[in-house]
């Protein structure tokens, strides 16, 4: 099998596996997996910028929240039809990422981290400032009408799972195709050595801008999907916490690998889920696990798998 065929088999295999799991797993884990898949789309969006282009942003919660609020507010305030509201959610992510990217890309390295962090913080504070409309930290519940898309009731456990799977499959196969495309390879070139990419004639500023906008929009789509599938929009999703999560997921799962984000989310989710089952101090265990992974699997889980044999892992 060629590497391309192997990678195709892997990604389709993962989607099929997730579909099979729906019938095998108990209801509790099916519910968990639906949430994991949506968060994994967010992580995939983050990975596009961090893992493939090499830009460390600490402000992705802004994009996630832009999607969530773009969707939620339009339903909440104007009763927009669900499909249109979803598009609006994605669009608001696109616009926000467009503006943030334009400004933040004037900086690099740590300054880029801080600028994105600042913009996200400003976004979070704006949500709090307009508390009477946005309901601030408390958040609001999305109406039932807002959670019905093309006649499908997305608050239903099974429908929700399939919707999340469709979204994840699109994001997963999409990035797998993207990183093998000319654009994807150019982005990796920027990550590996920006000066060299520039010397080879690539407009690296433009490439980085595309990466920010793509990554921000995908994160926003994940945010909108989270709102529609779980029926809740809240300021918590715009906090620094939610900017750090995708970084952790991606680093744990394996930055710059297509399946890393999904693995990272599953790992973190179940680490906290399982350890909170027998101790209150689950964050302690999460901390220890982070340290251990950091010491013994520096490339993340998928990165470690790639290093130990599966060299073709995209």
């Amino acid at each position: 099998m060629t590497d391309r065929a192997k990678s195709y088999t892997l990604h389709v295999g993962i989607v099929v596996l997730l579909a099979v799991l729906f019938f095998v797993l108990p209801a509790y884990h099916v519910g968990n997996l639906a949430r994991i898949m949506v968060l994994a789309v967010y992580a995939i969006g983050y990975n596009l910028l961090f893992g493939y282009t090499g830009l460390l942003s600490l402000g992705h919660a802004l994009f996630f929240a832009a999607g969530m609020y773009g969707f939620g507010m339009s339903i909440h305030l104007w009763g927009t039809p669900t499909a249109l509201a979803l598009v609006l959610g994605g669009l608001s992510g696109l616009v926000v990422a467009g503006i943030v990217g334009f400004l933040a890309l004037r900086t690099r390295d740590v300054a880029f981290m801080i600028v994105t962090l600042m913009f996200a913080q400003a976004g979070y504070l704006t949500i709090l400032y307009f508390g009477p409309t946005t309901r601030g930290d408390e958040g609001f519940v999305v109406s039932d009408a807002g959670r019905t898309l093309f006649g499908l009731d997305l608050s239903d456990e099974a429908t929700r799972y399939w919707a999340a799977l469709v979204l994840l499959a699109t994001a997963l196969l999409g990035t797998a195709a993207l990183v093998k495309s000319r654009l994807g390879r150019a982005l990796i070139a920027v990550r590996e050595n920006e000066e060299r990419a520039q010397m080879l004639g690539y407009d690296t500023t433009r490439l980085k801008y595309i990466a920010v906008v793509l990554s921000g929009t995908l994160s926003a789509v994940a945010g909108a999907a989270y709102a529609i599938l779980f029926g809740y929009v809240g300021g918590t999703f715009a906090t620094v916490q939610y900017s750090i999560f995708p970084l952790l997921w991606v680093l744990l799962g394996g930055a710059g690998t297509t399946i890393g984000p999904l693995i990272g989310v599953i790992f973190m989710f179940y680490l906290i889920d399982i350890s909170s089952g027998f101790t209150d101090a689950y964050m302690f265990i999460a901390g220890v696990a982070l340290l251990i992974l950091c010491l013994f699997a520096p490339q993340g889980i998928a990165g470690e798998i790639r290093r130990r044999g599966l060299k073709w892992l995209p």
Partner: protein
Amino acid sequence: MDFGPHLLLATLEGAVTAAILALTAMGLSIVFGVMRVVNVAHGEFYMLGAVIAWFIATSLGAHPAIGFVAALLLAPLAVGAIAAVSDRLILSRIDYDPERTIVATIGLLYIIQQATLMTFGPDARPVEPPFNHRIALPWVEWGDGGLALYWPWGLSITSYKLFIIGAAAVVLTGIWLVMTRTRFGLIMRATQQDREMAMVFGVPVDRTFAYVFGLGAGLAAIGAVLVVPVQQAHYLMGHDPLLLSFIVVIIGGLGSLPGTVIAAILIGMTDGIISVFFSPTLAKIIATLAVAMVLVFRPQGLMGKASR
């Protein structure tokens, strides 16, 4: 209160914030400058300083002044030791790789926070200040009989808050003397300029790193010990100082210690002043965007050197 006295009050409160911020950010700045790593657990070392100060002050049970002095001496040492050990155990083993250090220090953050929650509990606890006199401040106004001094109601500061400002100034001067006048300072500066070259000249770089990491955490702890009498110790108190210190270090210019102090004063003061006159949330939005814009148009910070 009129505008003038109000502004004076805001400036004084801002100066206290700025003093604490300067200490905390200086710790982060030294670590960043010398070791080139982002220490996400810095805020937790700050919190540990406050919590250990509370333990020392309450277990001594003597006069508040004795407890406070003991805490001021011992808590930073304890925190510094914890930081130095974690540097040896963790950071040195991942070769100070920038991204892995972020994950490792996030892990450290969770561990320290949770350990504090389990031992210290979720309550906020105060440490009694060693002295606390209310000092009323006069204001000058043009009255019927020419210039006259009067004491507006509410315009006052406590002696302890003045002490915070003084103590921070003393510690920062001490750091400056250490950096410029001592052998350890020379070693730190050499490591900062060129790690490999320093190693070639016989500088024990790994030991220096442990000391530097301890020193950075210790500075945060000093700031925290100074702040507990006015702001209680709580296991989540490290969050805001971490973000603010980050901003200060970057705005001041990476690796520039004077820049860090200037930025701390600037940001601490503005934070104090704007929040008195505007709604705190709006003030924060404006301040946050302003900081972002400074970086967008001057990515190297105020005092940093532009990269080639």
